[in-house]
């Protein structure tokens, strides 16, 4: 019992530190869309495979505090309804982003499984990024439930940056493969995506 409580307390402290760090680092309404501009080149291969992350422009709107300000100004009695609606959308968006990043990572594992040009440090970096993304996205989910979607913009920005890194890493690695390998991987991926009965 005491051990459980200690672990719980440690977990809460770590979550608090993470939250404080990320919230203190948050800039005034940074554009989440600008984060995605850097990944356009390496994203092409993932786009061809229909492995696009959800739009950052949409996230920009979902997490925009200006909408909350509008509600507080125009219809303060609807604040709770608005927060409930926006929290629900934010959570859906987060889940969609997590699902897509998971798919990109699974595709990457499939792609490098048969690749002769395996680079240890690249593998390690992408695996580390994916773990970091999962940690951030699950923390973000808890934070959205606890604080609402408008105080967590710093964490959202951070999670995007990591998802971008994963996209870039996977895009570059897969893009460097020869055409025949890529075609074979695409076929394998398509078979995995639509398993036979």
């Amino acid at each position: 019992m005491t051990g459980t409580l200690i672990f719980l307390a440690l977990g809460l402290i770590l979550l608090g530190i993470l939250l404080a760090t990320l919230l203190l680092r948050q800039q005034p309404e940074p554009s989440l869309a600008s984060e995605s501009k850097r990944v356009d080149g390496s994203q092409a291969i993932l786009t061809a495979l229909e492995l696009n992350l959800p739009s950052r422009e949409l996230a920009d709107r979902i997490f925009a505090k200006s909408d909350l300000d509008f509600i507080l100004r125009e219809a303060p009695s609807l604040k709770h309804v608005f927060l409930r609606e926006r929290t629900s959308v934010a959570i859906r968006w987060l889940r969609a982003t997590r699902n897509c990043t998971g798919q990109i990572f699974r595709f990457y594992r499939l792609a490098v499984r048969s690749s002769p040009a395996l680079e240890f440090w690249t593998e390690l970096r992408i695996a580390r990024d994916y773990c970091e993304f999962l940690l951030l996205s699950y923390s973000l989910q808890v934070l959205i439930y606890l604080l609402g979607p408008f105080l967590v913009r710093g964490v959202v920005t951070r999670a995007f940056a990591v998802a971008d890194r994963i996209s870039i890493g996977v895009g570059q690695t897969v893009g460097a493969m020869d055409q025949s390998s890529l075609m074979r991987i695409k076929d394998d991926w398509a078979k995995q995506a639509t398993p036979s009965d």
Partner: protein
Amino acid sequence: MKQRANEVSLVDAVEDLKRRTLASLSNDMARLVYLSSTRDYLTGRYYHDGLAFRFTGQLAEVAVGFCHHELFEKIVSSQLGVLVRELEVFIRSQQARPREVLGAWKKLQPYRMLVPQGSDWVSKEFFFSNIRIALAILEDRLEKTPHQDQQSAWPQQ
């Protein structure tokens, strides 16, 4: 060469649709309602006789679909305040009383038909959520000034 010609025709068709048809509508919400109403609900295909007459049926369908997507993206990415204003102007431009329209939109949710095919589901959910909030705001405004529930007499903010 043929592909280039098709691209030019598509640009022309889109421009034609915007200039001749969409420009005459009161605002973006009215345009969105109009564009989605040109879609056959059984097949999801767009039909626009005027555009098909000037260009081809296939080109008209692509042009209407393109404009529908473009407009939906614009509305989804607009601020909540802008959406509320769009909806307010749209409802005010209808023949029915605002309260009646609000009630029907809340109950029947016709706004679900305004989404173009192929939109991602998070965008759809975000759009539906914003429309629900906008309807609640407009209803709230109407309740504060019930005597103004007349056509073309929406309380001005």
